[in-house]
């Protein structure tokens, strides 16, 4: 038996960093507001007895037929549709340009859920939170229901009759036409735009993106002669080094990257191929939290580190590299040595990715990958996806053109440059000089308001389309339902104005012709295009040079890092309440952005969470910009970095003024500016022609104001209550268990827990009276694979009709998510480690909630489910109080909204809960029942994999596995037998059905010991 070791200590937030410190009263209690003494003159019982009797009488008197319900059948029944039965259509996600494969669940003619397409070669079954939530965009009551002309409703015929002659006049007059869009990954759309613009003497397409990858495109133009974005194959990489690239969170195609990355992080399948992942970054990204080694560097130090790494590797490879005037290495030499040794050992099987927008740095990264022989193995430039790559400066040149009045017509795709661009206001002014502005926006935004004609495009779920995915794979999009409103595909509008009337479907079909088998491609949602030839490229060594040393930050300045939040990206989804209410994976803050500062920086400035600070950027020779934001103290962040999320302060977020229940003490969800958060786009800068998200030098000063952030980090605490602490025992419990790869390989088990934390022989409070003769459902969550990305949280919310409650209710700990992802901090050698742990109802075999329910609303099922019958619940909340995992949620109000359109996204199989009812994770019992009914019909038992809860279905990392624990061959049973398997709060003997696989980091074992000592 191994000696017992004190386990690593974990804490949830800075308010409880050192074990014994008592948490604030708010954090400790399940229902913080229930302690107020009731002021009652008539005794409560008297009143209830009398009122109940009287009410009963009145209710009986009022008994009558419920309102008449109608059943309206089809007139002509479509063949494939049976009312009440879901149909799934394959399509391609349109929430960002990654193009993940979807299976859209359609019930009775409307799309209600997006699931990942398991067969899809790129996304492989995962869907991120933003993708999941994009279905709500379909049922958004702010969508335009018809075209607009001068702000007034018009018909398509009227709009066409206006626009066509105007365009003819421009054409004959040799005028200039511009089409401004985001990055276009659709070959058909690109073709249609080119055809449309080709009719004019001076027609030009300009694209841009706030989350730009222009530097990567340009670097490859220099080193490979090809302006393109490589395909990154994380599944092939033994060693991954990330420089400021949040590839598991928001960078390029996070779902595909997470799938590849997690392939090599599942110890059970890949103990010998477990990857090593080092991350260099200034803020704390989702990717950084999962790295085996995370190195804090300021943005200004990035160039120097890459320089040093390049010269070290060049020396090892015997390649010449002029490192120029080397700046001193800003980090520990041993760390760089470790990273470069790992890379060198795994040459050809390593991958260096960089999120920087500095072309010189990107060129060096290309050089590193080339030196290591990674091209063609872990990253591939021979068959890249077709993306834009106009460079970030193009939109600025366009703006000058617009301002000069030389442009006759401007066409705007469905996006919002007035919000996105740092000088958006100037763009709006410049737009005023254009004679004809046509927008394809699906709603009125800062930009589309200025357009004379708004020709709303379909939602992507109502459209035909295609997405180039690289590697000769194309994703296809088909309409999954009839368009809700009088909208028209942008493709059709453009062809109509080019004088033809081809449908969008035919346009897409024409693009691919015989190169794909059409029916098959639409059925699968993707196809391989055999005839797209790979193009060999050669590396141009002469393009490589050392990165010039950037200016030092002045002593009191901070380096600004602007970043896309996992749920908000660049603000394109700012009208989506689900995403505003999704706790950020790292900070756990909802409904706000903020200025993240490291604890040391916060101390230096004398600020703490929620203190307002002014972040001011005054470029040389330019006008100063400043924004005021609440501070957030973020352990693990670089001391010289202030990080601010983009995408907030969006005009679209003004609509959330009425989110949440109306009551006397309601506090607003919106900030003082009448919006959610602050717009940070004004702080974006251009440098050497590329849009810079990080690196600008800013000053940060407290303003003395306060803005309380709503953060879920302290909620649902599972520590031992103060009154019950056994002397000598820690209040914290080992929720997260962690080991290093080396010690796990040696021991095949997790480190044994320390003294006083396990009580296996304390005996049972409950008799073993459940037999579980049929199925016994269980779940295992792999903490090594889980990235905390929270796709599961949003997936669960949509599947189970979980309401949005608003910022104030979250602040009152009333967030309704059935599945939360707990984040823990711990420390290794002075560096902060962050761990994520998804926690849902644990479906205990000996569930403490069941024993205390006075009305038997929560009872144990034959198959181990802990069931909640809403119609039986009277809302005593005893169960929540008695739940050791704090997974039960109470409906303090009638949270469901009377938004008829948004309610079309509700899952018709799930009850919409009313006020006063307790709810919680059901293990997606509706999916179990669906599988059971289907299996019954086929006369076979439910097979392993037939039931996949919503969280498991959309997990890009495949970290969640559900199944029958009675079946020894099921995937879940196999994982339960793993040496990493443990159950949370095992010592309470409640026998949860959910287990976890311990976190594994690929570190040297001695580090492990060092820490534990």
């Amino acid at each position, binding site marked *: 038996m191994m000696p017992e070791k004190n386990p690593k200590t974990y804490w949830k937030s800075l308010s409880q960093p050192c074990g014994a410190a008592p948490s604030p009263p708010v954090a400790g209690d399940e229902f913080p507001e229930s302690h107020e003494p009731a002021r009652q*003159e*008539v*005794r409560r019982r*008297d*009143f209830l*007895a*009398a*009122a109940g*009797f*009287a*009410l*009963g*009488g*009145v*209710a*009986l*008197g009022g*008994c009558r*037929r*419920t309102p*008449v*319900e*109608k*059943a*309206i*059948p*089809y*007139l*002509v*029944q479509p063949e494939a549709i*049976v*009312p*009440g*039965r879901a149909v799934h259509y394959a399509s391609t996600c349109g929430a960002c340009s990654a193009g993940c494969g979807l299976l859209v669940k359609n019930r009775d003619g409307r799309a209600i859920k997006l699931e990942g397409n398991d067969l899809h070669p790129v996304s492989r079954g995962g869907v991120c939170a933003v993708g999941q939530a994009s279905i709500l965009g379909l049922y958004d009551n702010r969508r335009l229901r018809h075209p607009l002309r001068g702000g007034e409703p018009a018909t398509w015929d009227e709009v066409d009759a206006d626009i066509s002659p105007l365009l003819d006049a421009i054409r004959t007059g040799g005028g200039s036409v511009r089409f401004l869009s985001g990055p276009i990954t659709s070959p058909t759309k690109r073709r249609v735009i080119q055809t449309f613009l080709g009719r004019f003497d001076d027609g030009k397409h300009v694209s841009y993106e706030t989350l730009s990858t222009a530097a990567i495109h340009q670097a490859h133009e220099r080193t490979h002669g090809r302006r393109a974005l490589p395909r990154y194959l994380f599944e092939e990489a033994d060693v991954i080094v990330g420089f400021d690239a949040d590839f598991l969170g928001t960078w390029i195609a996070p779902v595909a990257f997470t799938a590849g990355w997690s392939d090599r992080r599942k110890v059970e399948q890949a103990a010998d191929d477990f990857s090593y992942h080092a991350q260099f970054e200034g803020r704390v990204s989702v990717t950084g939290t999962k790295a085996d080694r995370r190195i804090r560097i300021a943005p200004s130090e990035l160039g120097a580190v890459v320089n040093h790494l390049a010269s070290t590797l060049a020396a090892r490879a015997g390649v010449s590299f002029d490192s120029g005037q080397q700046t001193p290495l800003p980090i520990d030499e041993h760390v760089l040595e470790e990273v470069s040794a790992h890379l060198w050992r795994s040459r050809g099987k390593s991958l260096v990715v960089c999120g920087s927008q500095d072309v010189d740095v990107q060129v060096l990264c290309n050089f590193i990958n080339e030196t290591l022989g990674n091209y063609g193995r872990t990253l591939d430039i021979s068959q890249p996806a077709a993306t834009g790559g106009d460079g970030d400066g193009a939109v600025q040149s366009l703006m000058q053109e617009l301002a000069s009045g030389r442009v006759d017509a401007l066409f705007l795709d469905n996006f919002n440059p007035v919000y996105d661009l740092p000088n958006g206001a100037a763009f709006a002014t410049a737009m005023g000089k254009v004679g004809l502005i046509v927008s394809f926006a699906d709603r009125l935004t800062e930009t589309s308001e200025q357009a004379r004609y708004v020709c709303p495009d379909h939602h992507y779920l109502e459209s035909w389309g295609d997405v180039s995915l690289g590697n000769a794979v194309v994703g296809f999009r088909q309409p999954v339902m009839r368009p809700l409103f009088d909208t028209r595909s942008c493709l059709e509008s453009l062809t109509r104005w080019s004088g033809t009337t081809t449908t969008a479907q035919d346009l897409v079909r024409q693009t691919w012709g015989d190169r794909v088998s059409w029916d098959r491609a639409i059925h699968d949602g993707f196809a391989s295009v055999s005839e797209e030839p790979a193009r060999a490229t050669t590396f141009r060594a002469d393009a490589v040079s050392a990165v010039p040393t950037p200016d030092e930050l002045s002593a009191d300045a901070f380096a600004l890092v602007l970043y896309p939040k996992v749920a908000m990206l660049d603000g394109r989804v700012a009208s989506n309440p689900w995403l505003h209410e999704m706790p950020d994976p790292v900070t756990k803050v909802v409904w706000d952005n903020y200025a993240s500062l490291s604890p040391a920086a916060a101390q230096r400035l004398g600020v703490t969470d929620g203190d307002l600070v002014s972040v001011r950027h005054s470029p040389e020779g330019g006008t100063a910009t400043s924004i005021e934001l609440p501070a957030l103290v973020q352990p693990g962040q670089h001391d010289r970095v202030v990080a601010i999320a983009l995408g907030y302060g969006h005009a679209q977020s003004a609509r959330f003024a009425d989110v949440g229940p109306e009551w006397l003490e309601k506090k607003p969800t919106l900030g003082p500016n009448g919006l959610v958060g602050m717009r940070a786009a004004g702080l974006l800068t251009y440098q050497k022609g590329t849009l810079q998200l990080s690196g600008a030098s800013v000053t940060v000063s407290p303003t003395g104001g306060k803005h309380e952030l709503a953060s879920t980090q302290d909620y649902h605490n599972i520590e031992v209550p103060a009154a019950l602490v056994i002397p000598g025992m820690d209040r914290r419990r080992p929720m997260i268990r962690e080991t290093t790869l080396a010690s796990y390989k040696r021991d095949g088990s997790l480190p044994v827990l320390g003294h006083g934390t396990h009580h296996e022989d304390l005996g049972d409070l409950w008799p073993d009276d459940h037999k579980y003769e*049929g199925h016994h459902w269980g779940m295992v969550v792999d903490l090594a694979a889980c990235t905390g990305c929270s796709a599961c949280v949003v997936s669960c919310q949509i599947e189970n009709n979980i309401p949005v409650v608003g910022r104030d209710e979250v602040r009152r700990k009333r967030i309704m998510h059935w599945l939360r992802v707990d984040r823990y901090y711990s420390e290794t050698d002075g560096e902060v480690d962050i761990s994520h742990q998804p926690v849902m109802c644990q479906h205990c075999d000996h569930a403490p909630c069941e024993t205390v329910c006075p009305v038997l609303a929560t*009872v144990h*099922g*034959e*198959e181990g*489910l802990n*069931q*909640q*019958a*809403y*119609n*039986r619940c009277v809302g005593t909340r005893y169960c929540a109080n008695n739940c050791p995992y704090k997974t039960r949620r109470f409906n303090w109000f009638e949270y469901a909204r009377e938004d008829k359109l948004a309610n079309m996204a509700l899952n018709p*199989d*799930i*009850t*919409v809960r009313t006020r006063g009812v307790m709810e919680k994770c*059901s293990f997606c*019992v*509706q999916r179990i*029942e669906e599988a*059971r*009914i289907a299996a*019954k*019909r086929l006369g076979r038992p439910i097979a392993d994999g037939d039931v996949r809860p919503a969280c498991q279905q959309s997990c890009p990392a495949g970290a969640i596995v559900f199944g029958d624990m009675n079946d020894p061959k099921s995937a879940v049973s196999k994982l339960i037998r793993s040496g990493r398997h443990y159950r949370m709060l095992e010592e309470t003997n409640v026998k949860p059905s959910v287990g976890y696989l311990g976190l594994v980091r690929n570190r040297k074992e001695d580090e492990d010991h060092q820490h534990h000592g």
Partner: protein
Amino acid sequence: MLTRESRSQSVTIVLAIGAVFSLATLVARLGAFHLPGNHQGYAPEQPIAFSHRLHAGELLIDCLYCHHGAETSRHAGIPAGSICMNCHSIVTDTLGSVRAEDERAEEEQRKPRRMVSAELQKLYDALAVDEEMKPIPGRTPRSIEWIKVHNLPDFTFFSHAAHVPTGVACERCHGAVETMERVRQVEDLSMGWCVNCHRSVNRIGVGGRAVDASLDCAACHY
């Protein structure tokens, strides 16, 4: 502030009001007393006086011919107009009426007219078709809005597909529909009624086959 005395007085008043209401209700509705939510005996008038007695009873058309969703879906489904038209594009009136017209036509030595019953005319109006079953230009078809007879509360999940393929006969829950001129809710569709059946089939099976009818709350409530 209320004193102890005035409090008991107010309680008495409230109790008295309650008692009067309850008594009045009980007396008034003693004959047809149902617990709230129980709609046993509900037989609403339908937009078309469709007769199950004729179709299912006399003509012996299988239930699943029209309600074909019952085997695969949660809902049995109300047949689409197109399913009615499988027969009613030819059969437009009762046999008696057609024969009478034939006789009249023979007497008057003319071609018999096509007879269309008043109820079927409603179907053709909904589909916007003329006597020759051709669409009438300029008329939009309109769905028929049937009144749902068997309603379960929203917090209850029921699936026909879980019951019909296991061999549970339609009339087990819906009664002798083939004798009904207008459909009536026969059973009370209460939870107790559901559970009693689930218990008994676990003992005796359905049609001689053993079944596993769940007694879990979450079999129906989620």
